[in-house]
Protein backbone atom coordinates (compact mmCIF):
# COMPACT_ATOMS: atom_id res chain seq x y z
CA UNK A 1 0.00 0.00 0.00
CA UNK A 2 1.42 3.35 -0.98
CA UNK A 3 0.59 6.32 1.24
CA UNK A 4 1.50 8.85 -1.42
CA UNK A 5 -1.16 10.97 -3.10
CA UNK A 6 -1.43 11.53 -6.87
CA UNK A 7 0.49 14.81 -6.63
CA UNK A 8 3.36 13.06 -4.86
CA UNK A 9 3.38 10.29 -7.47
CA UNK A 10 3.49 12.87 -10.27
CA UNK A 11 6.40 14.71 -8.59
CA UNK A 12 8.19 11.41 -8.05
CA UNK A 13 7.75 10.45 -11.73
CA UNK A 14 9.31 13.75 -12.82
CA UNK A 15 12.32 13.20 -10.54
CA UNK A 16 12.78 9.65 -11.80
CA UNK A 17 12.61 10.92 -15.40
CA UNK A 18 15.12 13.69 -14.56
CA UNK A 19 17.52 11.18 -12.99
CA UNK A 20 17.25 8.62 -15.77
CA UNK A 21 16.99 10.81 -18.91
CA UNK A 22 20.71 11.54 -19.42
CA UNK A 23 21.68 7.96 -18.67
CA UNK A 24 19.06 6.52 -21.02
CA UNK A 25 19.95 8.92 -23.83
CA UNK A 26 23.63 7.90 -23.65
CA UNK A 27 22.65 4.24 -23.94
CA UNK A 28 20.28 4.94 -26.85
CA UNK A 29 22.69 7.09 -28.85
CA UNK A 30 25.31 4.35 -28.44
CA UNK A 31 23.13 2.09 -30.63
CA UNK A 32 22.68 4.53 -33.50
CA UNK A 33 23.36 3.14 -36.99
CA UNK A 34 24.27 6.62 -38.27
CA UNK A 35 27.71 8.17 -38.42
CA UNK A 36 26.66 11.17 -36.38
CA UNK A 37 24.89 11.84 -33.06
CA UNK A 38 21.26 10.73 -33.31
CA UNK A 39 18.71 8.54 -31.64
CA UNK A 40 18.26 5.17 -33.33
CA UNK A 41 14.81 5.51 -34.93
CA UNK A 42 14.51 2.72 -37.47
CA UNK A 43 17.25 0.30 -36.53
CA UNK A 44 19.64 -0.53 -33.71
CA UNK A 45 23.24 -1.08 -34.64
CA UNK A 46 26.32 -2.31 -32.83
CA UNK A 47 28.70 -0.50 -35.19
CA UNK A 48 29.87 1.97 -32.53
CA UNK A 49 30.54 -0.80 -30.04
CA UNK A 50 32.64 -2.60 -32.64
CA UNK A 51 34.38 0.72 -33.32
CA UNK A 52 35.72 0.78 -29.75
CA UNK A 53 38.09 -2.06 -30.62
CA UNK A 54 39.70 0.17 -33.28
CA UNK A 55 40.68 2.75 -30.67
CA UNK A 56 43.42 1.11 -28.62
CA UNK A 57 43.52 4.14 -26.27
CA UNK A 58 40.10 3.25 -24.86
CA UNK A 59 40.92 -0.43 -24.51
CA UNK A 60 44.23 0.31 -22.79
CA UNK A 61 42.56 2.88 -20.52
CA UNK A 62 39.92 0.32 -19.58
CA UNK A 63 42.58 -2.16 -18.43
CA UNK A 64 44.44 0.57 -16.54
CA UNK A 65 41.23 1.48 -14.72
CA UNK A 66 40.43 -2.13 -13.93
CA UNK A 67 43.88 -2.87 -12.49
CA UNK A 68 44.09 0.43 -10.70
CA UNK A 69 40.66 -0.06 -9.10
CA UNK A 70 41.28 -3.66 -8.06
CA UNK A 71 44.78 -3.05 -6.68
CA UNK A 72 44.13 0.25 -4.92
CA UNK A 73 40.99 -1.12 -3.25
CA UNK A 74 42.82 -4.26 -2.11
CA UNK A 75 45.72 -2.20 -0.71
CA UNK A 76 43.26 0.21 0.92
CA UNK A 77 41.56 -2.73 2.63
CA UNK A 78 44.93 -4.03 3.79
CA UNK A 79 45.66 -0.82 5.74
CA UNK A 80 42.03 0.01 6.59
CA UNK A 81 41.14 -3.26 8.35
CA UNK A 82 43.76 -3.00 11.13
CA UNK A 83 43.04 0.73 11.49
CA UNK A 84 39.30 0.02 11.71
CA UNK A 85 39.91 -2.61 14.42
CA UNK A 86 42.04 -0.14 16.39
CA UNK A 87 39.47 2.66 16.10
CA UNK A 88 36.51 0.39 16.86
CA UNK A 89 38.00 -1.30 19.92
CA UNK A 90 40.39 0.99 21.70
CA UNK A 91 39.89 4.30 23.41
CA UNK A 92 43.17 6.15 23.16
CA UNK A 93 44.43 9.68 22.94
CA UNK A 94 44.52 10.69 19.28
CA UNK A 95 41.81 8.23 18.25
CA UNK A 96 39.52 10.95 16.88
CA UNK A 97 42.41 12.66 15.11
CA UNK A 98 43.34 9.37 13.44
CA UNK A 99 39.76 8.71 12.35
CA UNK A 100 39.51 12.28 11.04
CA UNK A 101 42.76 11.95 9.13
CA UNK A 102 41.74 8.63 7.54
CA UNK A 103 38.36 10.05 6.45
CA UNK A 104 39.82 13.42 5.34
CA UNK A 105 39.98 12.57 1.60
CA UNK A 106 36.16 12.66 1.71
CA UNK A 107 36.24 16.30 2.83
CA UNK A 108 39.10 17.64 0.71
CA UNK A 109 37.95 18.58 -2.82
CA UNK A 110 39.43 16.16 -5.34
CA UNK A 111 40.75 19.04 -7.43
CA UNK A 112 42.87 20.13 -4.46
CA UNK A 113 44.10 16.57 -3.95
CA UNK A 114 44.88 16.39 -7.68
CA UNK A 115 46.96 19.55 -7.51
CA UNK A 116 48.76 18.33 -4.38
CA UNK A 117 49.46 14.87 -5.83
CA UNK A 118 50.74 16.32 -9.11
CA UNK A 119 53.22 18.54 -7.24
CA UNK A 120 54.25 15.77 -4.84
CA UNK A 121 54.69 12.99 -7.41
CA UNK A 122 56.61 15.28 -9.77
CA UNK A 123 58.97 16.21 -6.93
CA UNK A 124 59.67 12.60 -5.89
CA UNK A 125 59.93 11.33 -9.47
CA UNK A 126 56.67 9.39 -9.66
CA UNK A 127 54.97 11.89 -12.05
CA UNK A 128 52.74 10.11 -14.55
CA UNK A 129 53.76 6.67 -13.26
CA UNK A 130 51.31 3.90 -12.43
CA UNK A 131 52.78 3.57 -8.92
CA UNK A 132 51.96 7.23 -8.23
CA UNK A 133 48.43 6.73 -9.51
CA UNK A 134 48.12 3.67 -7.28
CA UNK A 135 49.16 5.61 -4.17
CA UNK A 136 46.78 8.45 -5.02
CA UNK A 137 43.83 6.11 -5.54
CA UNK A 138 44.73 4.11 -2.42
CA UNK A 139 44.34 7.29 -0.38
CA UNK A 140 41.05 8.45 -1.91
CA UNK A 141 39.30 5.04 -1.69
CA UNK A 142 40.61 4.25 1.80
CA UNK A 143 37.78 6.16 3.58
CA UNK A 144 35.17 3.98 1.88
CA UNK A 145 36.94 0.75 2.82
CA UNK A 146 37.48 2.08 6.35
CA UNK A 147 33.90 3.22 6.89
CA UNK A 148 32.30 -0.08 5.96
CA UNK A 149 34.86 -2.17 7.85
CA UNK A 150 34.43 0.12 10.85
CA UNK A 151 30.64 -0.31 10.73
CA UNK A 152 30.89 -4.10 10.86
CA UNK A 153 33.68 -4.05 13.48
CA UNK A 154 31.62 -1.83 15.81
CA UNK A 155 28.47 -3.84 15.24
CA UNK A 156 30.20 -7.13 15.97
CA UNK A 157 29.28 -9.21 19.00
CA UNK A 158 32.48 -9.38 21.07
CA UNK A 159 31.05 -12.23 23.18
CA UNK A 160 31.82 -14.65 20.34
CA UNK A 161 35.51 -13.72 20.50
CA UNK A 162 35.50 -14.09 24.26
CA UNK A 163 33.91 -17.52 23.91
CA UNK A 164 36.72 -18.52 21.54
CA UNK A 165 39.36 -17.21 24.00
CA UNK A 166 37.76 -19.04 26.93
CA UNK A 167 37.84 -22.22 24.85
CA UNK A 168 41.61 -21.83 24.53
CA UNK A 169 42.00 -20.22 21.10
CA UNK A 170 45.19 -18.24 20.53
CA UNK A 171 45.03 -14.56 19.53
CA UNK A 172 45.94 -15.43 15.97
CA UNK A 173 43.27 -18.16 15.80
CA UNK A 174 40.65 -15.74 17.14
CA UNK A 175 41.58 -13.16 14.51
CA UNK A 176 41.65 -15.65 11.63
CA UNK A 177 38.74 -17.90 12.58
CA UNK A 178 36.37 -15.50 14.37
CA UNK A 179 37.03 -11.79 13.88
CA UNK A 180 37.89 -11.66 10.18
CA UNK A 181 35.01 -13.96 9.08
CA UNK A 182 32.60 -11.82 11.12
CA UNK A 183 33.67 -8.55 9.50
CA UNK A 184 34.05 -10.16 6.04
CA UNK A 185 30.76 -8.77 4.63
CA UNK A 186 31.89 -5.25 5.55
CA UNK A 187 35.30 -5.90 4.00
CA UNK A 188 33.87 -7.26 0.75
CA UNK A 189 31.37 -4.41 0.39
CA UNK A 190 34.10 -1.95 1.34
CA UNK A 191 36.32 -3.33 -1.40
CA UNK A 192 33.51 -3.17 -3.96
CA UNK A 193 32.53 0.41 -3.07
CA UNK A 194 36.21 1.42 -3.11
CA UNK A 195 36.59 -0.21 -6.53
CA UNK A 196 33.64 1.71 -7.97
CA UNK A 197 34.99 4.98 -6.54
CA UNK A 198 38.40 4.36 -8.07
CA UNK A 199 36.91 3.19 -11.39
CA UNK A 200 34.81 6.39 -11.70
CA UNK A 201 37.29 8.94 -10.33
CA UNK A 202 38.20 11.61 -12.88
CA UNK A 203 38.86 14.97 -11.15
CA UNK A 204 41.94 13.96 -9.21
CA UNK A 205 43.20 11.45 -11.78
CA UNK A 206 43.17 13.95 -14.64
CA UNK A 207 45.97 15.82 -12.86
CA UNK A 208 48.10 12.77 -12.09
CA UNK A 209 47.64 10.58 -15.17
CA UNK A 210 49.89 10.92 -18.21
CA UNK A 211 49.58 9.38 -21.67
CA UNK A 212 50.11 5.68 -21.04
CA UNK A 213 48.60 5.74 -17.55
CA UNK A 214 45.27 7.37 -18.44
CA UNK A 215 42.26 5.75 -16.83
CA UNK A 216 39.02 5.22 -18.73
CA UNK A 217 37.13 8.24 -17.28
CA UNK A 218 40.16 10.46 -17.97
CA UNK A 219 40.42 9.18 -21.54
CA UNK A 220 36.66 9.76 -22.01
CA UNK A 221 36.91 13.24 -20.51
CA UNK A 222 39.81 14.28 -22.76
CA UNK A 223 38.02 12.80 -25.79
CA UNK A 224 34.80 14.72 -25.02
CA UNK A 225 36.80 17.94 -24.65
CA UNK A 226 37.76 17.60 -28.32
CA UNK A 227 34.54 16.29 -29.82
CA UNK A 228 31.39 14.38 -28.92
CA UNK A 229 30.47 11.50 -31.22
CA UNK A 230 28.61 8.18 -30.95
CA UNK A 231 31.88 6.39 -30.14
CA UNK A 232 32.22 8.04 -26.74
CA UNK A 233 28.53 7.33 -26.13
CA UNK A 234 29.10 3.61 -26.70
CA UNK A 235 32.12 3.65 -24.37
CA UNK A 236 29.98 5.40 -21.75
CA UNK A 237 27.21 2.84 -22.26
CA UNK A 238 29.72 0.07 -21.47
CA UNK A 239 30.85 1.90 -18.32
CA UNK A 240 27.21 2.38 -17.27
CA UNK A 241 26.51 -1.34 -17.85
CA UNK A 242 29.49 -2.39 -15.70
CA UNK A 243 28.42 -0.02 -12.90
CA UNK A 244 24.77 -1.13 -12.97
CA UNK A 245 25.78 -4.79 -12.64
CA UNK A 246 28.10 -3.96 -9.71
CA UNK A 247 25.37 -1.80 -8.18
CA UNK A 248 22.72 -4.51 -8.22
CA UNK A 249 25.22 -6.98 -6.78
CA UNK A 250 26.12 -4.59 -3.97
CA UNK A 251 22.47 -3.85 -3.25
CA UNK A 252 21.77 -7.58 -2.86
CA UNK A 253 24.87 -8.14 -0.75
CA UNK A 254 24.72 -5.19 1.59
CA UNK A 255 21.78 -2.89 0.88
CA UNK A 256 22.38 0.32 -1.02
CA UNK A 257 21.04 2.72 1.61
CA UNK A 258 23.21 1.15 4.33
CA UNK A 259 26.18 1.21 1.99
CA UNK A 260 25.81 4.89 1.14
CA UNK A 261 24.49 6.28 4.41
CA UNK A 262 27.53 4.70 6.02
CA UNK A 263 26.30 3.74 9.44
CA UNK A 264 24.54 0.40 9.70
CA UNK A 265 20.84 1.11 9.66
CA UNK A 266 19.23 -2.24 10.24
CA UNK A 267 15.88 -3.13 8.73
CA UNK A 268 13.53 -4.30 11.48
Amino acid sequence: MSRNGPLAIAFHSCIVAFMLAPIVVVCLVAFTPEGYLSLPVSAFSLRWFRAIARYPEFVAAFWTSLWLGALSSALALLVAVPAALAIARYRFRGRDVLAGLFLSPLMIPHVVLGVAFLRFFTQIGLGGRFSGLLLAHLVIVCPFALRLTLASATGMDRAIEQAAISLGASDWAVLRRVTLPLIAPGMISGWALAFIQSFDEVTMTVFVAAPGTETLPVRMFLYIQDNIDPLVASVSACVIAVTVVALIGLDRLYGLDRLLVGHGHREP
Partner: protein
Amino acid sequence: MSPAILHRPSRGGVWVAWLLSLPALAIFVAVVVVPLAMTVLLSFYDWGQYKGIEPVLIWKNWREVLTDPYFREMFARTFRIALLVTLISALLGAPEAYILNRMASPWRGIFLLVILGPLLISVVARTLGWALLFGGSSGVINKALMNVGLLAAPLPFMFTETGVVVALSHVLLPFMVLAVWAALQRIDVQVENAATSLGAGHLTVLWRIVLPQAMPGVLSGAIIVFALAASAFATPAIIGGRRLKVAATLAYDEFLNTLNWPLGAAVAVLLLLALVVVTLGCNALIERRYAEAFR
Protein backbone atom coordinates in the same frame (compact mmCIF):
# COMPACT_ATOMS: atom_id res chain seq x y z
CA MET B 1 26.78 -5.35 26.10
CA SER B 2 28.44 -2.77 28.26
CA PRO B 3 30.94 -0.38 26.72
CA ALA B 4 33.52 -1.55 29.23
CA ILE B 5 33.64 -4.94 27.55
CA LEU B 6 33.56 -3.42 24.07
CA HIS B 7 36.63 -1.33 24.67
CA ARG B 8 38.87 -2.98 27.21
CA PRO B 9 41.37 -0.21 27.78
CA SER B 10 44.62 -1.69 28.92
CA ARG B 11 48.13 -0.24 28.86
CA GLY B 12 49.19 -2.75 26.22
CA GLY B 13 46.01 -1.95 24.31
CA VAL B 14 47.05 1.58 23.42
CA TRP B 15 50.27 0.34 21.86
CA VAL B 16 48.39 -2.31 19.91
CA ALA B 17 45.99 0.35 18.64
CA TRP B 18 48.82 2.57 17.39
CA LEU B 19 50.60 -0.43 15.88
CA LEU B 20 47.43 -1.42 14.01
CA SER B 21 46.95 2.13 12.72
CA LEU B 22 50.60 2.58 11.77
CA PRO B 23 50.47 1.47 8.10
CA ALA B 24 47.49 3.71 7.35
CA LEU B 25 49.00 6.57 9.36
CA ALA B 26 52.33 6.35 7.52
CA ILE B 27 50.61 6.40 4.11
CA PHE B 28 48.28 9.27 5.01
CA VAL B 29 51.05 11.44 6.42
CA ALA B 30 53.28 10.78 3.40
CA VAL B 31 50.64 11.03 0.67
CA VAL B 32 48.07 13.49 2.11
CA VAL B 33 49.63 15.73 4.74
CA VAL B 34 53.00 16.26 3.04
CA PRO B 35 51.61 16.99 -0.47
CA LEU B 36 49.03 19.42 0.95
CA ALA B 37 51.73 21.24 2.89
CA MET B 38 53.87 21.34 -0.27
CA THR B 39 50.94 22.84 -2.20
CA VAL B 40 50.46 25.60 0.36
CA LEU B 41 54.18 26.34 0.13
CA LEU B 42 54.01 26.24 -3.69
CA SER B 43 51.33 28.93 -3.67
CA PHE B 44 53.95 31.39 -2.33
CA TYR B 45 56.58 30.58 -4.98
CA ASP B 46 57.39 32.83 -7.90
CA TRP B 47 56.85 31.89 -11.52
CA GLY B 48 57.87 33.37 -14.84
CA GLN B 49 57.32 32.37 -18.44
CA TYR B 50 61.03 31.69 -18.96
CA LYS B 51 62.47 31.13 -15.51
CA GLY B 52 59.82 28.61 -14.41
CA ILE B 53 59.12 28.02 -10.72
CA GLU B 54 61.37 29.86 -8.30
CA PRO B 55 61.31 28.79 -4.62
CA VAL B 56 61.07 32.19 -2.97
CA LEU B 57 58.32 33.13 -0.54
CA ILE B 58 56.29 36.05 -1.92
CA TRP B 59 52.68 37.20 -1.79
CA LYS B 60 52.43 37.76 -5.58
CA ASN B 61 50.04 34.90 -6.39
CA TRP B 62 47.82 35.54 -3.41
CA ARG B 63 47.61 39.24 -4.19
CA GLU B 64 46.69 38.40 -7.79
CA VAL B 65 44.06 35.83 -6.80
CA LEU B 66 42.49 38.10 -4.18
CA THR B 67 42.50 41.42 -6.07
CA ASP B 68 42.37 40.69 -9.83
CA PRO B 69 38.76 41.18 -11.07
CA TYR B 70 39.15 38.13 -13.34
CA PHE B 71 39.62 35.84 -10.34
CA ARG B 72 36.93 37.63 -8.35
CA GLU B 73 34.42 37.06 -11.16
CA MET B 74 35.48 33.42 -11.46
CA PHE B 75 35.07 32.75 -7.72
CA ALA B 76 31.74 34.62 -7.72
CA ARG B 77 30.55 32.41 -10.60
CA THR B 78 31.76 29.28 -8.80
CA PHE B 79 29.85 30.08 -5.62
CA ARG B 80 26.77 31.36 -7.51
CA ILE B 81 26.56 28.03 -9.36
CA ALA B 82 27.12 26.09 -6.13
CA LEU B 83 24.40 28.06 -4.30
CA LEU B 84 21.85 27.54 -7.08
CA VAL B 85 22.65 23.82 -7.30
CA THR B 86 22.25 23.52 -3.52
CA LEU B 87 18.89 25.29 -3.63
CA ILE B 88 17.57 23.14 -6.50
CA SER B 89 18.80 19.93 -4.86
CA ALA B 90 17.06 20.85 -1.60
CA LEU B 91 13.78 21.77 -3.31
CA LEU B 92 13.75 18.56 -5.36
CA GLY B 93 15.61 16.16 -3.09
CA ALA B 94 13.85 16.73 0.23
CA PRO B 95 10.30 16.04 -1.04
CA GLU B 96 11.61 13.10 -3.06
CA ALA B 97 13.22 11.54 0.02
CA TYR B 98 9.95 11.97 1.92
CA ILE B 99 7.95 10.35 -0.91
CA LEU B 100 10.46 7.48 -1.15
CA ASN B 101 10.22 6.94 2.59
CA ARG B 102 6.43 6.60 2.39
CA MET B 103 6.50 4.04 -0.41
CA ALA B 104 5.43 0.45 0.13
CA SER B 105 8.01 -2.30 0.31
CA PRO B 106 9.03 -3.43 -3.19
CA TRP B 107 8.79 0.04 -4.79
CA ARG B 108 10.77 1.70 -2.04
CA GLY B 109 13.83 -0.46 -2.65
CA ILE B 110 13.54 -0.23 -6.44
CA PHE B 111 13.21 3.55 -6.58
CA LEU B 112 15.88 4.07 -3.94
CA LEU B 113 18.18 2.16 -6.29
CA VAL B 114 17.01 4.28 -9.26
CA ILE B 115 17.57 7.60 -7.45
CA LEU B 116 20.78 6.74 -5.58
CA GLY B 117 22.28 4.44 -8.21
CA PRO B 118 23.44 7.26 -10.52
CA LEU B 119 25.72 8.35 -7.67
CA LEU B 120 28.00 5.48 -8.56
CA ILE B 121 27.82 5.97 -12.34
CA SER B 122 30.73 7.88 -13.86
CA VAL B 123 30.26 11.67 -13.74
CA VAL B 124 31.70 11.87 -17.25
CA ALA B 125 29.03 9.51 -18.62
CA ARG B 126 26.21 11.39 -16.86
CA THR B 127 27.44 14.77 -18.05
CA LEU B 128 27.79 13.39 -21.58
CA GLY B 129 24.09 12.50 -21.30
CA TRP B 130 23.20 16.15 -20.69
CA ALA B 131 25.42 17.27 -23.55
CA LEU B 132 23.61 14.77 -25.81
CA LEU B 133 20.18 15.94 -24.62
CA PHE B 134 20.72 19.67 -25.05
CA GLY B 135 24.06 20.10 -26.80
CA GLY B 136 23.71 22.76 -29.48
CA SER B 137 21.71 22.05 -32.61
CA SER B 138 22.63 18.35 -32.51
CA GLY B 139 21.13 17.89 -29.03
CA VAL B 140 18.42 15.24 -29.03
CA ILE B 141 15.76 17.40 -27.38
CA ASN B 142 16.65 20.54 -29.31
CA LYS B 143 16.51 18.66 -32.60
CA ALA B 144 13.17 17.06 -31.76
CA LEU B 145 11.64 20.38 -30.69
CA MET B 146 12.95 22.12 -33.78
CA ASN B 147 11.63 19.35 -36.07
CA VAL B 148 8.19 19.72 -34.53
CA GLY B 149 8.48 23.45 -35.00
CA LEU B 150 8.26 24.40 -31.32
CA LEU B 151 11.72 25.94 -31.41
CA ALA B 152 13.25 28.20 -34.01
CA ALA B 153 16.79 28.03 -32.60
CA PRO B 154 18.36 25.52 -30.19
CA LEU B 155 17.93 26.27 -26.48
CA PRO B 156 21.13 27.76 -25.16
CA PHE B 157 22.44 25.06 -22.82
CA MET B 158 26.01 24.18 -23.68
CA PHE B 159 28.56 26.79 -22.53
CA THR B 160 26.00 28.50 -20.27
CA GLU B 161 25.71 28.70 -16.49
CA THR B 162 22.16 27.35 -16.73
CA GLY B 163 23.47 24.21 -18.39
CA VAL B 164 26.14 23.74 -15.72
CA VAL B 165 23.57 24.26 -12.93
CA VAL B 166 21.09 21.74 -14.41
CA ALA B 167 23.72 19.07 -15.05
CA LEU B 168 25.34 19.56 -11.62
CA SER B 169 21.94 19.38 -9.90
CA HIS B 170 21.45 16.01 -11.57
CA VAL B 171 24.89 14.83 -10.50
CA LEU B 172 24.49 15.94 -6.85
CA LEU B 173 20.76 15.39 -6.19
CA PRO B 174 21.34 11.85 -4.83
CA PHE B 175 23.51 13.26 -2.02
CA MET B 176 20.60 15.43 -0.86
CA VAL B 177 18.10 12.54 -1.07
CA LEU B 178 20.53 10.40 0.92
CA ALA B 179 20.99 12.98 3.69
CA VAL B 180 17.26 13.67 4.07
CA TRP B 181 16.51 9.95 3.87
CA ALA B 182 18.89 9.32 6.77
CA ALA B 183 17.18 12.04 8.83
CA LEU B 184 13.71 10.66 8.04
CA GLN B 185 14.75 7.23 9.32
CA ARG B 186 15.06 8.75 12.81
CA ILE B 187 11.53 10.18 12.83
CA ASP B 188 8.96 8.31 14.89
CA VAL B 189 5.88 7.69 12.70
CA GLN B 190 3.74 7.71 15.85
CA VAL B 191 4.25 11.47 16.19
CA GLU B 192 2.72 11.98 12.73
CA ASN B 193 -0.14 9.67 13.65
CA ALA B 194 -0.67 11.52 16.92
CA ALA B 195 -0.87 14.85 15.07
CA THR B 196 -3.37 13.44 12.59
CA SER B 197 -5.50 11.94 15.35
CA LEU B 198 -5.55 15.34 17.04
CA GLY B 199 -7.07 16.78 13.88
CA ALA B 200 -4.07 18.17 12.00
CA GLY B 201 -4.44 18.21 8.21
CA HIS B 202 -1.89 16.60 5.93
CA LEU B 203 -0.18 19.90 5.13
CA THR B 204 -0.03 20.89 8.80
CA VAL B 205 1.62 17.56 9.66
CA LEU B 206 4.14 18.08 6.85
CA TRP B 207 4.92 21.66 7.84
CA ARG B 208 4.86 21.37 11.64
CA ILE B 209 5.96 17.77 12.31
CA VAL B 210 7.95 16.32 9.40
CA LEU B 211 9.84 19.35 8.07
CA PRO B 212 11.33 20.47 11.42
CA GLN B 213 12.55 16.95 12.07
CA ALA B 214 13.92 16.51 8.54
CA MET B 215 15.63 19.91 8.59
CA PRO B 216 18.97 18.73 10.03
CA GLY B 217 19.13 16.24 7.14
CA VAL B 218 18.33 18.95 4.58
CA LEU B 219 21.01 21.23 6.03
CA SER B 220 23.73 18.59 6.22
CA GLY B 221 22.80 17.54 2.67
CA ALA B 222 23.06 21.18 1.62
CA ILE B 223 26.59 21.43 3.02
CA ILE B 224 27.69 18.32 1.14
CA VAL B 225 26.07 19.45 -2.12
CA PHE B 226 27.49 22.97 -1.83
CA ALA B 227 31.03 21.74 -1.19
CA LEU B 228 30.89 19.25 -4.07
CA ALA B 229 29.29 21.77 -6.46
CA ALA B 230 31.85 24.48 -5.66
CA SER B 231 34.73 22.09 -6.35
CA ALA B 232 33.14 20.21 -9.27
CA PHE B 233 35.43 19.73 -12.25
CA ALA B 234 34.25 17.39 -15.01
CA THR B 235 30.70 18.76 -15.38
CA PRO B 236 31.63 22.47 -15.63
CA ALA B 237 34.55 21.56 -17.89
CA ILE B 238 32.33 19.64 -20.35
CA ILE B 239 29.15 21.75 -20.22
CA GLY B 240 30.81 25.11 -19.49
CA GLY B 241 33.52 24.66 -22.07
CA ARG B 242 36.83 26.48 -22.13
CA ARG B 243 35.50 29.97 -21.52
CA LEU B 244 33.06 29.52 -18.61
CA LYS B 245 35.71 28.92 -15.96
CA VAL B 246 35.07 27.85 -12.37
CA ALA B 247 37.67 27.41 -9.63
CA ALA B 248 38.43 23.75 -10.38
CA THR B 249 38.73 24.18 -14.16
CA LEU B 250 40.87 27.29 -13.68
CA ALA B 251 43.28 25.40 -11.42
CA TYR B 252 43.45 22.66 -14.07
CA ASP B 253 44.23 25.25 -16.73
CA GLU B 254 47.01 26.85 -14.71
CA PHE B 255 48.57 23.48 -13.94
CA LEU B 256 48.31 21.73 -17.31
CA ASN B 257 48.06 24.47 -19.94
CA THR B 258 49.63 27.71 -18.70
CA LEU B 259 52.00 25.75 -16.42
CA ASN B 260 51.86 28.54 -13.82
CA TRP B 261 51.78 26.04 -10.96
CA PRO B 262 52.18 28.55 -8.10
CA LEU B 263 49.13 30.52 -9.26
CA GLY B 264 47.12 27.30 -9.74
CA ALA B 265 48.15 26.21 -6.24
CA ALA B 266 46.92 29.54 -4.81
CA VAL B 267 43.53 29.06 -6.53
CA ALA B 268 43.25 25.50 -5.18
CA VAL B 269 44.28 26.45 -1.63
CA LEU B 270 41.88 29.40 -1.62
CA LEU B 271 39.05 27.10 -2.74
CA LEU B 272 39.93 24.64 0.02
CA LEU B 273 40.07 27.42 2.64
CA ALA B 274 36.74 28.91 1.52
CA LEU B 275 35.06 25.50 1.66
CA VAL B 276 36.53 24.67 5.08
CA VAL B 277 35.25 27.99 6.47
CA VAL B 278 31.76 27.53 4.93
CA THR B 279 31.49 23.88 5.98
CA LEU B 280 32.71 24.32 9.55
CA GLY B 281 30.65 27.49 10.01
CA CYS B 282 27.43 25.87 8.80
CA ASN B 283 28.11 22.72 10.81
CA ALA B 284 28.57 24.76 13.98
CA LEU B 285 25.34 26.66 13.29
CA ILE B 286 23.37 23.48 12.65
CA GLU B 287 24.73 21.71 15.69
CA ARG B 288 23.86 24.62 17.94
CA ARG B 289 20.39 24.92 16.44
CA TYR B 290 19.60 21.20 16.34
CA ALA B 291 21.74 19.92 19.19
CA GLU B 292 19.16 17.33 20.22
CA ALA B 293 18.93 15.77 16.76
CA PHE B 294 22.60 14.85 16.73
CA ARG B 295 22.70 13.32 20.16
